[in-house]
């Protein structure tokens, strides 16, 4: 087992196996005799003990529910603690001299980094370490933002690059998907800002040129292809989902706002081209996701395909149709998509049965 996710999948598989055995016994279809079944039970118990010790997985439904609760609590706790650190410094920094301000700003992320490392070695679940790693990242963001304010430093997009580097390091050190997402967004922001400055734009206006995000989106989407993430649970989907979002969201914006493009064609032509691109890419992502068994990619492609479709329908019909008719058309198109997906699903089932 490479990571917690795979270990959890194995444990779920084992639990499902015993549930099915119990059901078959209840339905009087099949009953295993002790000679056959005991070695299997021993094997499974040993495997589950080993997986629990190594990855702290959930082996019962109740444990799973509690783990979900712990994840939510950890997430909220991390965000709240990060906000608290930020506002704590904000409230009191004016009473400190410059030397003390700088010392606190540099010490805070360092101290929280080493605290995270210390806690991770003593706590198997990893929740507290993840929480502290978020605090460490927040302290680093605060570090640079406040140094910039104290010394009136001209803002630079390089801050996004170092924040991205630190977030990604913490993400891989402590297996934190939230920090990986933060790192990806910072990296995308840096590339977009740097590309923007090459065209003469002030870097803080990087949000006003959606096309600046297309290149970083492609880079981010392809990361799992050239950097294996086996030991990290759920990192591949994070790269793919953010790659899709960073590509498709700008395309969606440009499909409605041609003036935001670097291209100097007629705005209507630009919008039409991006609309077409949006449909093609989102449909392509659905196909790619089905072929590669990437449910995250399928869902993202799906969501944007629907968004492009409904945006287009709004453009065509909102002004010329009565409202009830417009929403009826939306409903009918949803039903049509339901039939299409059902058909694709049936075909995929037939293909699997024929292989079996």
């Amino acid at each position, binding site marked *: 087992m490479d990571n917690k996710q795979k270990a959890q999948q194995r444990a779920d598989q084992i639990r499902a196996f015993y549930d099915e055995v119990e059901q078959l016994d209840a339905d009087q279809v099949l009953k295993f005799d002790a000679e056959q079944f005991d070695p299997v039970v021993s094997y499974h118990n040993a495997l589950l003990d080993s997986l629990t010790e190594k990855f702290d997985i959930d082996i019962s439904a109740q444990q799973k529910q509690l783990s979900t609760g712990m994840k939510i609590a950890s997430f909220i706790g991390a965000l709240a603690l990060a906000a608290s650190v930020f*506002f704590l410094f*904000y*409230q*009191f*920094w*004016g*009473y*400190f*001299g*410059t030397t003390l301000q*700088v010392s606190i700003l*540099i010490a805070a*992320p*360092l101290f929280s*980094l*080493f605290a995270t*490392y210390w806690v*991770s070695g003593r706590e198997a679940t990893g929740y507290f370490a993840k929480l502290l790693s978020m605090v460490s990242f927040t302290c*680093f963001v605060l*570090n*640079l933002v406040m*140094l910039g*304010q*104290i*010394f*009136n*430093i*001209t*803002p630079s997009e390089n801050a996004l690059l*170092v924040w991205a*580097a*630190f977030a990604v*390091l*913490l993400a*891989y*050190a*402590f297996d934190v998907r939230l920090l990986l997402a933060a790192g990806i967004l910072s990296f995308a922001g840096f590339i977009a800002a740097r590309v923007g400055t090459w065209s*003469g*734009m*002030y870097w803080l*206006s990087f949000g*006003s*040129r959606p096309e600046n995000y297309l290149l970083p989106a492609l880079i981010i989407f392809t990361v799992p292809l050239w950097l294996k993430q086996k030991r990290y649970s759920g990192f591949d989907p994070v790269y793919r989902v953010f790659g899709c979002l960073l590509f498709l969201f700008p395309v969606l914006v440009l499909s409605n706002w041609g*003036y*935001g493009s670097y291209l*100097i064609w007629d*705005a209507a032509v630009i919008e039409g081209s991006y609309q077409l691109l949006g449909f093609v890419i989102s449909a392509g992502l659905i196909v790619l996701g089905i072929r590669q068994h990437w449910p995250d990619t399928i869902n993202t492609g799906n969501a944007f395909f629907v968004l492009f479709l409904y945006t287009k329908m709004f453009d065509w019909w909102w002004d010329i149709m009565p409202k009830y008719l417009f929403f009826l058309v939306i409903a009918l198109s949803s039903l049509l998509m339901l039939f299409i997906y059902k058909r694709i699903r049936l075909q995929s089932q037939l293909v699997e049965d024929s292989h079996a």
Partner: protein
Amino acid sequence: MRKLILVGASVLLLTNVVVLAGVSYNRSGEPLVSIELTERELPVWQSYNSADENSGTALSLKWQVFNPDENLEYLSNTYITPSWLDDEKLTALGFDMDILKADIEKYQYRTWHHSVEALVVLEYQGDSYQRMLTVAENRMEILQKRAANFPDDKREQNKLSNFKKQLSRLKTSQSRLYAIDAGLDENALFQKYADKNRYLFVKAEIGLRWNKKDIEGRIRQLYVKQVHVPLPFSNMLSRISAGERYGAYNTTVVTPRYRVQLNIGQRLEPWVASVVATESADSSLK
């Protein structure tokens, strides 16, 4: 994991070393600018959120653009096109005005994308401020005559009354820093405007805007909007500037209560070197 932690710690330390080295370089040697400004040019920054818990103190940098229009209604301007920011200057800043003006239809909704980072020169208490006072006083005379000719016309009376307040602010509370030039060649500007006590140099974004059938230049923003005030000056400022403050939404006339020695360093980053109460503020504190 230990390797990643060590790399992470290195990133933290190295980043801070680079940042502080930049600060040290900026403040090394003689400052490029060392100018004494007052509360008019550097009012204490006010948060619009009255519940703001920020204990830090900053000064806003206020500046103006000279408006030569004799029929002007407002005496506080940063969004108009400066007269010196003409096509020749915009071309020197890197805009291809011939292409842009040849097809205004194509570019009119895209002008806001065209911008360049340049160095703007702000003149303190100079020719632009004097000319602004002259234009304002001439306008005042015209409004007074009109109000005298139409004593029952409430609109004319209100216009006069409002303009009187604006003129009073222009003379007493409003910034005397006026943008007078911009360029890409910093050394050329430093040489041209060599008086350290009269000119400020600030990096800014200069962009274009579409105005009816024409494309004009505009100073979109100065990159320095606020200057942090460290201890002990922040305590001093809190005492001196307690009470009424001049700001965009508070149009009370406030006589400046403090003077600030502002330095600008090698990287064009400013810092506050000293804060002193003016004589009137000093006596009121005692």
